[in-house]
């Protein structure tokens, strides 16, 4: 056994000699991850509703904090999503009961969840999330439904945009189907939302999701 010890030590030393990547170079750009329901025909929807606020998620806060469009950061984010949806032929409505699609935007300000997992209910670690009765009091107590696998590690400084098919609400199982999720990591600089990166991330998320298009009908 003693003869094996030097070999074991040599192995440990050699394993520790790996040259690490240039992290500084990597942090200069965004990471944008999108998922969607491949069985969903996005062209069948006509209207969408987009709340005029962004939910700030912080796993140390017990009360929800919404940043309204009066804050220029939230306004820029909301307007970017509106611009993309309108350019793809969808019509924004200001009465959520008339919308085919609901779009919610959240910003993960702080979280201790770093581990990737194939579990879509990523927001369970927070004390709060967008309540489903936001869309209709009738949906109180309903559940989200992700018809696609989600494998991702949500970290601090991630903007998350999700699309809910309100038109497809399943009364029998009391489920609201989430048909699109976009995660944009790396949009924070110096503990602040970097608006130009957030907007670039939103444009990239739509760019790599050409199926979101009412005009395709």
């Amino acid at each position: 056994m003693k003869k094996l010890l030097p070999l074991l030590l040599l192995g440990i030393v050699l394993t520790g000699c790996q040259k690490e990547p240039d992290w500084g170079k990597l942090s200069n750009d965004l990471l944008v991850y999108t998922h969607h329901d491949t069985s969903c025909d996005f062209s069948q929807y006509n209207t969408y509703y987009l709340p005029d606020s962004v939910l700030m998620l912080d796993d140390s806060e017990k009360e929800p904090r919404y940043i309204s469009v009066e804050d220029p950061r939230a306004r820029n984010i909301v307007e970017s999503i509106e611009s993309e949806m309108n350019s793809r032929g969808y019509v924004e409505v200001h009465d959520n009961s008339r919308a085919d699609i609901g779009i919610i935007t959240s910003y993960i300000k702080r979280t201790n969840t770093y581990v990737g997992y194939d579990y879509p209910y990523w927001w369970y670690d927070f004390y709060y999330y967008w309540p489903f009765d936001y869309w209709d009091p009738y949906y109180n107590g309903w559940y989200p439904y992700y018809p696609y696998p989600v494998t991702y590690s949500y970290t601090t400084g991630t903007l998350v945009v999700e699309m809910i098919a309100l038109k497809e609400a399943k009364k029998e199982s009391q489920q609201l189907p989430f048909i699109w999720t976009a995660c944009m990591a790396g949009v924070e600089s110096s503990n602040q939302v970097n608006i130009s990166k957030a907007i670039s991330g939103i444009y990239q998320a739509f760019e790599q999701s050409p199926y979101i298009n009412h005009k395709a009908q």
Partner: protein
Amino acid sequence: MKSIRILAIALLACIVLPGTLSAQLYKSTYFNVDWQFNGIVGNDFANTPSGWGMNFEGGRYVTSKIAVGLYASFHTNNKYVEPQVLELSPSSHLYTDQVQSVFQIPFGALLKYRFVEDSMFEPYVTAKMGAMYSRMSSSSQVVEFYDEEWGFNVQPEVGVSIFPSSSNRTGIHIGIYYNYSTNQSQCLLYNMNGLNNIGFNLGVTF
């Protein structure tokens, strides 16, 4: 810091080991401690050549020209890839830049043949055979995908040991090698079915 550490290990080995070991070693024993330059060939993944590695080997001459011994080396090849959209599955797409990396540690036994003995210039050929640990990874700023594998390793090498005189056996070593291992790895959308490397070693022999 890694480069400095590797350089420090190499310098320490070059300065200290010959002096401390010479008194207790047989004349028929040799050691090589080298800086290593290596490139992955036949695969697009992490195929940027680099000098982030070292080679260690030692052996004993069982005849005047044939030696048997052991070898171990380590090497990292990194490659930065500009941002692109990767289709991970029909339902998911990832836009990111990444650093592709392959870290290798081959080790095992060697058979060496030198064409001349006790000369200032000793050209040689070596056949190395053993196992190899490899770690294939793709890193972005928030997530790393990786795969660790083991495989069988073979490494033919030609080179020359250069000594100041036929009696002073501390000199310079230069070797060119081809390295193949059977490691099969999969990382993100990339596959490696065996690893091929070409490189050279430059260091001291004593």
